[in-house]
Every structure is written in structure tokens, then in C-alpha cells.
């Protein structure tokens, strides 16, 4: 298998698999399930092969394929992978099988097919480097997610699905319009070329010259275009105050879908910030740094506080997700918004923050997905009940369950030795010297996270056993196998983060250098 085919196969396999399974009749669920697992496993193998063939010493794009697609519009089939993309591809390749296995055994073929299509969308987003091509997958991932929520979600699924779809669609439209404007001005849709233009300062000049808004200054025009792109990503991550769709969506979506939403889809937004927004709009990132940083602090602190007020386990974890991605945004804004700094000192800090962001993205993906997986186990045992105060004392009857979920929760709190700590430490290390007040303000989030997650453990696991759950079964062998890879990763990446950082470090160095220009 030629290395250049990896990225194409990565998208093609789940896409093909998804369409095959769409054609399977409703009754043959077992077959559909097996096929879905086979396809996702195949895609997983391709991801592993790409990992094996990936050269971690190089920060440049690898496995690049660039073929003309619609030459008249400057549209190429352009894919490539660097350390950032690889981390996201590996995360997706890990989470989709987990989600497929978490989905109920009698899940209809359509549900599995949609999950595979979602995987194709995710892989496409993380590898495509031309706007047209990339946007196709960005939107492709939205459609299966919408149907997954709409068809198999909780009681309020209709409203949640619509809100999710419309809200993200508004973001996408803003994004699309901005890129149309960029295309009209420059005729380029290629991210790499656009970043080049931006570095040289030509992008802003082109936008001002060719868009024909004489009454607006060049800076304002660029800022408006920047705002459109920002909105698209800010909704996706989400950034406060564009986050209100998220708790409802995560709570109403079937839990296997929530695993993908929080584990992988939320990373699309942060990925967009790193791959697209920051390189193409470096000047605007700098100008808007202060408000953006405070929005990130708001995301971190207010979502943690709001999590404490929730009673539904899924809503608690949803807010916790917002909080954790807030740290990523803090790192991105601190790194992208800072000036060059004296003698490249800022580059060290920038590299720390960016490393932290990528590590946090990966680790949050694993931790959040496995936490929702545990919630689905609870739902299965409790007929869909999942209130924080509905249980109590479960540790007595389900010690393994509580032990393993406790490990994941402590990883989420950021306990050293588990995966969550490394990312947060690096982000704070970088952000503290680039944006000290924002970093200091964000530490409040670290505290409140501990408060609400420990309260969760106290109410669900500890105290006297609620007699209603005397028959609460401990983890079955199958369930243990399902969460095992995630738990192992939580330990491995907590103790030996080099396993992940080794892949991304060269990319981080390149990005830090580019952000400094």
C-alpha cells in the first residue's frame, strides 16, 4: 500500500462502508454491526499504518496528495497530515469503534451507517487542506450527527437536534461566506497558500482592494472576514457565549453519539483554530487577543460553575467538556495572539502552549468519551435514569465500575499521573507567561472542576447504598474490555506523555515559528 494512498483510503473506507450498511435491511442488525466493526477496524488499520509510516522528526505535511479537481475554481484534491492531524486521526480511529460498541446491540443498520459516515467526515476534516474539499467534510460530519440525534435521541431530541443543526449551520454559513469573500479577492482556496499570503501581508491588501467596500478600511474588512471564520469555529468548539446548544445536544443525543460529539467533533473546532484561523489571520488574532482570552476564561470558569448546578450526569459532563476545551482555547489564543517576544523567548512558551493544546485535545477526547461510555452503562442498568442524585453508594455493589469510572473522573480533574494533567500543565505553563492574568483567572476552573466532579462521585458512588440499586450489576467482562483501551491510555499518556508529544513536537515547533512571524 503506497503511503500516498493512506489518507484517501482513510476517508474512502468508512464512506464506502457507510453506504454498504445503508443498504442492509432493518432486520439484519447483527450483520450490520459486524460489517460496521470491520470497516471501522480497516480504517483503524490504515490510521495505524499512517502512524507507523509517519516521520515524527518532520513538522511538515506528510502523505501529501494534490490533484486538480476543479481547476477553474482553484479547487484541488489536496490532503496531507502533520503531527496535529495525525493525533486527531488516531483519536477518531480509536473513538468510533468504541462508540459503535457502546451503541445498543439492536441498533438499526442506519444508525451504524451514520456513525461510519460521521467517521468519514471526521477523517476528511482532519486531512483536507483545500477549503472546498475541507468544507465538504466539515458539513458531511454534521448531517449524520443531526440524524443520529433526531432519530435515536432522548425525549427532547427534536428540539435539540434542530438547535444543534441550525446553530452549527449558522456558524458554517458565516465560515462559508468568509471564504467566498477570500476566494473572490484572491482566487485561492488552498489553506497553505492562504497562510503564505497572510504571512506576507498580501491577504489583507487583496481583501481590501478587491472586495469593493471603499467605505471600510483594510483592517476592518479583514476583521469582518476573520469574524465570520471565528464564528464558525467558536460555535463548534464551543466558545462562550456560543455554547448553549451543547448541553442540550449532548444530553439528548444517544450516548454513543455523544461520545463522538465530545470526543472527536468538538476537536474539529479547535483543529480549525490551529489549522485555519490562526495561520490565515495572524494579525487579527493578535488584535483580538484580549477579548478572545477573556472569552476563553469565561468559557472555563462559567462552564465549570454551571456544571455544578446540573443534576443530569450527561449535562454535568457536557459542561465539563466545555470547560476542558476552554483550556485548549486559552492555549490557542495565548500562543497565536502573542507578539514575537524578545529573542524568541515567546517561542518556547508558545511551543509549550501548543503542545499542551494538542495533548489536551487528544486526552480530553479519550477521557470524555469513556466517561460518557460509563454513563451509558449506568443508563442501561437504570432504565435510562441518570440523575446525579438518583443513585448513592454504588461503590458497594459495583466496585470495579466505580473504580474505573473514578480513574476517568480523576483524569478529568487533572490528577497528575493521569493523562489530563500533562495538557493542562503545558497550557498553563505557556499561557502564564504569554497572558498571565487570563491564565491566573483560569485556574479557578481547575478548582471548580474538582468541586463538581468530586460531588458527582460523592453522590453516585459514596454514602449509604440506595436500596433501589441493590441489584446494580458491576461491569461485565465485555464492558471492561470496551473501556480498557481508554483506561490504559489514560495511564500511559499520564506517565509517558512523550508517546504522544513525540509525534507532535516537530509540528508544534513549526507552528510556533509560523505564529511568531
Amino acid at each position, binding site marked *: 500500500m503506497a503511503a500516498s494512498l493512506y489518507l484517501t483510503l482513510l476517508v474512502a473506507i468508512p464512506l464506502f462502508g457507510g453506504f454498504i450498511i445503508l443498504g442492509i435491511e432493518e432486520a439484519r442488525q447483527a450483520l450490520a454491526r459486524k460489517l460496521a466493526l470491520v470497516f471501522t477496524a480497516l480504517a483503524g488499520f490504515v490510521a495505524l499504518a499512517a502512524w507507523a509510516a509517519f516521520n515524527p522528526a518532520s513538522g511538515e505535511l506528510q502523505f501529501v496528495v494534490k490533484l486538480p479537481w476543479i481547476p477553474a475554481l482553484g479547487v484541488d484534491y489536496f490532503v496531507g497530515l502533520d503531527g496535529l492531524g495525525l493525533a486527531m486521526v488516531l483519536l477518531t480511529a480509536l473513538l468510533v469503534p468504541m462508540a459503535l460498541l457502546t451503541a445498543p446491540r439492536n441498533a438499526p443498520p442506519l444508525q451504524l451507517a451514520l456513525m461510519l459516515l460521521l467517521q468519514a467526515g471526521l477523517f476528511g476534516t482532519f486531512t483536507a487542506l483545500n477549503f472546498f474539499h475541507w468544507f465538504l467534510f466539515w458539513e458531511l460530519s454534521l448531517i449524520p450527527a443531526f440524524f443520529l440525534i433526531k432519530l435515536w435521541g432522548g425525549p427532547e431530541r427534536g428540539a435539540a437536534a434542530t*438547535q444543534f443543526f*441550525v*446553530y452549527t449551520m449558522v456558524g458554517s454559513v458565516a465560515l462559508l461566506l468568509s471564504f467566498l469573500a477570500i476566494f473572490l479577492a484572491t482566487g485561492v482556496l488552498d489553506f497553505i497558500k492562504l497562510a503564505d499570503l497572510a504571512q506576507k501581508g498580501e491577504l489583507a491588501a487583496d481583501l481590501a482592494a478587491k472586495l469593493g467596500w471603499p467605505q471600510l478600511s483594510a483592517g476592518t474588512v479583514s476583521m469582518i472576514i476573520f469574524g465570520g471564520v471565528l464564528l464558525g469555529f467558536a460555535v463548534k468548539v464551543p466558545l462562550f*457565549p456560543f*455554547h*448553549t*446548544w451543547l*448541553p442540550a445536544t449532548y444530553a439528548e443525543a444517544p450516548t454513543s453519539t455523544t461520545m463522538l460529539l465530545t470526543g472527536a467533533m468538538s476537536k474539529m473546532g479547535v483543529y480549525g483554530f490551529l489549522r485555519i484561523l490562526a495561520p490565515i489571520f495572524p494579525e487579527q488574532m493578535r488584535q483580538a487577543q484580549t477579548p478572545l482570552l477573556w472569552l476563553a476564561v469565561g468559557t472555563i470558569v*462559567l*462552564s465549570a*460553575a*454551571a*456544571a*455544578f*448546578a446540573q443534576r443530569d450526569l450527561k449535562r454535568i459532563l457536557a459542561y465539563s467538556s466545555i470547560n476542558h476545551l476552554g483550556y485548549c482555547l486559552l492555549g490557542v489564543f495565548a500562543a497565536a495572539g502573542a507578539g514575537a517576544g524578545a529573542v524568541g523567548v515567546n*517561542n*518556547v*512558551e508558545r*511551543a*509549550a502552549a501548543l*503542545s499542551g493544546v494538542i495533548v489536551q485535545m487528544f486526552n480530553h477526547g479519550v477521557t470524555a468519551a469513556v466517561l460518557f461510555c460509563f454513563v451509558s452503562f449506568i443508563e442501561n442498568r437504570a432504565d435510562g435514569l441518570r440523575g446525579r442524585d438518583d443513585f448513592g*453508594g454504588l*461503590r*458497594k*455493589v459495583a466496585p470495579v465500575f466505580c473504580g474505573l469510572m473514578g480513574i476517568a473522573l*480523576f483524569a478529568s480533574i487533572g*490528577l*497528575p*499521573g493521569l493523562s489530563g*494533567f*500533562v495538557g493542562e*500543565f*503545558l497550557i*498553563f*505553563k505557556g499561557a*502564564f*507567561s504569554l497572558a498571565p492574568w487570563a*491564565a*491566573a483567572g483560569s*485556574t*479557578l476552573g*481547575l*478548582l*471548580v472542576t*474538582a*468541586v463538581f466532579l*468530586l*460531588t458527582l*462521585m*460523592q453522590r453516585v*458512588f*459514596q*454514602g*449509604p*447504598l440506595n436500596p433501589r440499586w441493590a441489584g446494580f450489576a458491576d461491569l461485565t467482562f465485555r464492558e471492561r474490555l470496551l473501556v480498557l483501551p481508554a483506561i490504559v491510555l489514560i495511564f500511559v499518556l499520564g506517565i*509517558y*506523555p*512523550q508517546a504522544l*508529544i513525540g509525534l507532535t*513536537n516537530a509540528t508544534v515547533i513549526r507552528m510556533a515559528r509560523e505564529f511568531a512571524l
Partner: protein
Amino acid sequence: MNWIVQNLWLIPGLPLLAAGLSALLKQRERTAAATLAIGSMGLAFVLSCVAFAHTLGGHGEETRHVFNFDWFQLGATSLKLGWVLDPLTAAMLVMVTFVGTLIFIYSVGYMAHDENFTRFFCFLSLFAAAMLGLVIANNLLLLFMSWELVGLASYLLIGFWYHKPSAAAAAKKAFITTRIGDVGFFLGIVWLYSETGTLLFYDNGHGCLEASALTKLVSMTVGGGVVVATAISLLIFCGAVGKSGQVPLHVWLPDAMEGPTPVSALIHAATMVAAGVFLLARVYPLLDVDPLNIAGRSTALSVVTWVGAVTALFAALIAVAQNDIKRILAYSTVSQLGFMMVGIGTGGVAVGMLHLITHAFFKALLFLGAGSVIHGCHEEQDIRKMGGLRAHMPKTFATYAIGMMALSGFPFVFSGFWSKDEILHEALHWDESHWPFYMVALGAVLTAFYMSRQMCYVFFGKYRGTAHAAAAHDAHQPVKHEAKPAKGKKGPQAKGNHAPAKASSRTPHESPDVMTIPLVLLAAFTILLVLVATPVWPWFHGYLSGHAAEVRVSELFAWDKLSVIGLSIILVSVGVAAACWLYWLKPVTRADSVDALEQLRPDVIGFLKQQCRVDEFYEATVVRFNAWAAVASDFLDRWIWGGAVKAASLAVLGVAWASRFFDEFGINLGFQKGCDGFAGAGGLLARLQSGRIHDYLRVIGLALTVLVLALVWGCRS
């Protein structure tokens, strides 16, 4: 490099391995779990002794050996971790592993009837691993990581009897309260890292505690004349305040007594809570730098001294009014930690560390003794329901008395006397203020008082616990034996074993050898430590600073030492005499009689009994604020930000409806009319096109007539 330096990681590594292995053990494999834990801890003790021997006889900086390695790449650099072997590390290692091993052995007896025996030893091993990791760390980050893991182990062990809501709440409170301090500590770490580019303490001149980094830190200010070094020191001190239970973050430590007593002895008396003091001793070079550049005097050290002095007095006051045997000891621990802080702040590393080490021995002894008492009195913890135990538990009494005398500071043969004496001495000679000295002196009086009071209540007089009271107590507080039905094969069996013992005697009984032998050993060391702690042969000071100590008997009779020694003796005597006057001369006879002191000043003692209502104060402020912030954030989300979105979507819907209305009833209707009009007109016109020649000719004729008339009319005008 020496073998032990390269393999120092084995000391925390062995308990960690034991923790990992016993996590996989089944509930009934009790012997295996205990063997693993005690064996690994014993081995760690042996290795610690080897390490200790390696640090003996060195001079100055030679005594420090480091081993550093890359943890992960960080841009163009890498983050290095490492461990350090120096006298400070070695002394702590030996203390932690020795006390730890004894407490592990004791636990075999104390926890014998507990259903989760295996899990208990797993957590204990995890704790030991983290604590030892903290001690050997040569990197502030590694120290912080171990620090947090120690906190985790403490959380797990305080909440060990998780089915008790009070234990679960205490565990959470401990974790969160210490985390408040840790947030400051964390910021201090990232700040230090940013300024110096390294977190290694010692790295051949490049470490953050070495001259070049310190010079840099003291040359920058953060505004208001505060140098960066001071700011970072104070942030790091926040961590120590949380972990070592200093005011205002002391509230978790008394509640932590919900954990099993060996846990209180090991974690909440001897080792973990002392980690804050150890941390300050470790980063002392950083605390000590100040623009004025006087050794042992800096802003940061002043803050440490004041906080320590306030804590020492405040906690001792509260301890006077408590009736729970463990709670008295807990407040005593808080108070003694304050003494250590004062020692560090005024006298430097050796003064604080000496009290840390001696305190570890006698406080572990006291807690284990208290555990033995509680065990012997059938899980009774209220000292008013004890009394006269001297006769029933002679070994416990004798060892407890030694611990009590060491803590109170009985002169000469008890190590506690000398270590406390030294703190008083340094505080007296502190040139900034005398108030800290007055505070710790009063604290020393109170210490002697509350410990004597406790002795009178527990061991003297008559036994006041009744079978009835004990039975009632067992019924409402099923600590370890009941509340654990069915699950696991050992549960019912264990209960069965213990039940006859309970039924046969309601009188107190002495604990088994597995519990008393550790007591005897700890008592022996409490006294033996005197050998290295006196001013005559200040071996410990010399060891920590890398100088050989000389025997100087004359030192003892120098006026400034002798005066403080005399003062110490007076302080202790006052405290003991007051307690004897109140509790010995008029022994307490009934469990429900009002405390002698409370009869004197019910208002003051009542307030102290309620622990100065600090918990209530936090409940009314911090906790309420947190709850309020949560509700406010939730409200903002649901109604303001979410509301804005909903309003926008409603507006869009409104526009859509309006446009539909307009389309259907406006445009469509108009269009319809227009169309109808066209159709009508078309029909009209179509009628004209009838195809009948006569009609056409008629129209043409008519038109011609009109045309002719019009022309004629036009010409005429």
C-alpha cells in the same frame, strides 16, 4: 555514580508496585495484600537506610547527588525530571519508611475485621509511594505530582468507609480545601518555570534553587516593590498552607479523622501533613532570597512565621475544648505544624525539620495509641466516656504517656522537648517582632494543658463507658462491622468472629501484640531521638547542613540557651499544673458532667468547642458563593445566552411567518387578482377575435367612421 543514587526511584517504586499488584487482588486475598504492602515498605526502609548511610560523612555540597532525565520534549528543549539524594531527603526517607512500616504492621491488627482489608493496603501502598516520590523529587513538578497523588491517597483513605456520609463528605472537603492551596502552588510552579526555564532544583548550577536562577529572580519585581522570588515563594507557600493545615485552610484536617486511625497516624499526623513543611525546607533557598540579602530573613519567611504562629496558637486553643480523642490530636497536629512553620521561618531548615521528625514519631505514637484506646473501648472516641484505662491497657497507657510527654515538652529525656525548645529559642531571637514568640509560648502552655487534660480523662479516674452506652453507640455508628452485609465471602465471617468478643465483655481490653509492638518501638524512638537533638551534640543540624557536629557541653550552659530551657520547663509546668488542678484533683465521674473548664467560662469554651465556627463561616461565604455562582451561570446559560439564541430563532420564525403571511395573503392574493384580471382581459380580447367576418367588417366600418369624424373635427379646428 553510586548505585543507590541511580536506583533511588526504587524506594517509591516498590510501594507503587505493591499498590498496583494489590489493586488486582481479590477481596479475600488478605494475607497477600498485607504481605505485599509491608514487604515493599520494609524493603523501602532498608534501601532508605542505605541511602541514609550514603549521605553520612559528606561535607557541604558533596552530600548532594542528583539524577536527572528527560520526561518529554518541549519544543526545542525538554522537560527534565529527576531525583535528589541529600541529607534532607535521606532523613525524610528513613522517617517515612520506618514510621510507615510500623503503621502498616499495626494496621494488620486494627483493620483485621474490615471487609475491604485488601483495598486498604492497596491505598496505603499508593500513599507511601507518592509520599516517597515527593521526598526524593529533584523537580518541583515531580514534587507537585507526588503531592497531588498523596492528596488522592488521603482522599481515598479518609473516605475509606465511604458508606458513611460523613466520611465521604470529609474526603471531598480534604481534597478540595487542599486543592485551593494547590492552585496557588500550581501558579507558582508555572511562574517559576517561565522565569528560570527549569524546574529542577539542582542541576549543576542550572537548577532553579541555584545561585544564577535565584539572582535572576531577585532582580525582577512584580510591582509594589515585591520581587518575583517573593511572589513565587508565597504562591508555593499557599500549597504548604493547604497541605499542612495552616490557618485559614486548616478546616479539612480535623474532619479527616473520619478515616481509620492508622491513616490518621500515618497521613494526617506523621507524613503527609508535614509535606508542606518539607516543601518549604526543600525550596528554602528560594524563600530566603530577598533584595536585602540577609541570610534567614526575607519577606516570604516572615509570612511563613506569622502564619505558623497564628496557627500554632489558634489550633491549640481549639484543642483545649474538644472531647473527641482523635479531634484533640488533630488540632494538636495543626498546632504543631504551626510550630514547625515558625521554626522554618525564624530558624531555618534544620529547626523546622527537627521538629518535623520528632513530631512524626510521637504523634504517630499518640494516634496509634488513640487507635488502641478506641479499639479497646469498642469504637468509642469520646474521652468523656473513657477513664481509668490505665489499669485495663497498661502497654497502651505507658507508651501513650511517653508520647504525651514528648508532645507537651517534658524536659530532657523526650525529643519533643528539645525540638520545641529550639523553636522557642529561634522565635525569641527573631528580630522582626516578638509576637510570634509569645504566640508559640502560649501555644506550648496550651499543648501541655490539653494533653494533660486528655490523659486525665482517658487513663485516670474511673471507667465511665457503660455497656448500655457502648451498645447504643455501636447501634447508631456501625463503623466497620455492621453495614457490610453479604458482599464478599469474608464479610459475614469477619462479623461472626468479632461478635462473640463484643458480647463477652463490655470492659475495655488491651490490644493485640501486633498493635502494641509498634507502639513500643515508636516510644523507644521518641526517646532515642534525644541523642541527636540536643544542643550538646547538634548532630541533626550538622547532618542537614553537611558539617560534622562537635560535642560541646558548654553550649547547654550558655545563658541564651539556658534561659529558654528554663522558660520551656516553666511553660510546660504551668500547662500541666493547670490541667491537674482542674481534672486530677476533681476527677470526672460521669460521662455527661460538664467539663471543669466549661464551668468557668461556658461562652468562651462553647465557642472553642464549635471550632471557632470557621466551618460555619466558610459555609456562609465560600460555599454559598460557589452555589450562587453555579445557579447564576446556569441561569445565564438558560435564559441570557440561550435566551438570546431562542429570541433570535423566534425572530427568524416570526419573519418566516410574516413572510409566509405576506406571500399567501399579500403577494399571492394580489397575484391571483392580477392573474384573474389578465385572464378576464384575455377572455375579453379573445372574444374580439371571434373569427366572424361580419364582426370584423362592423368594427372596421365603425372605426373608419370614427376616424373620418375625427379627421373632419380636427381639420375644422
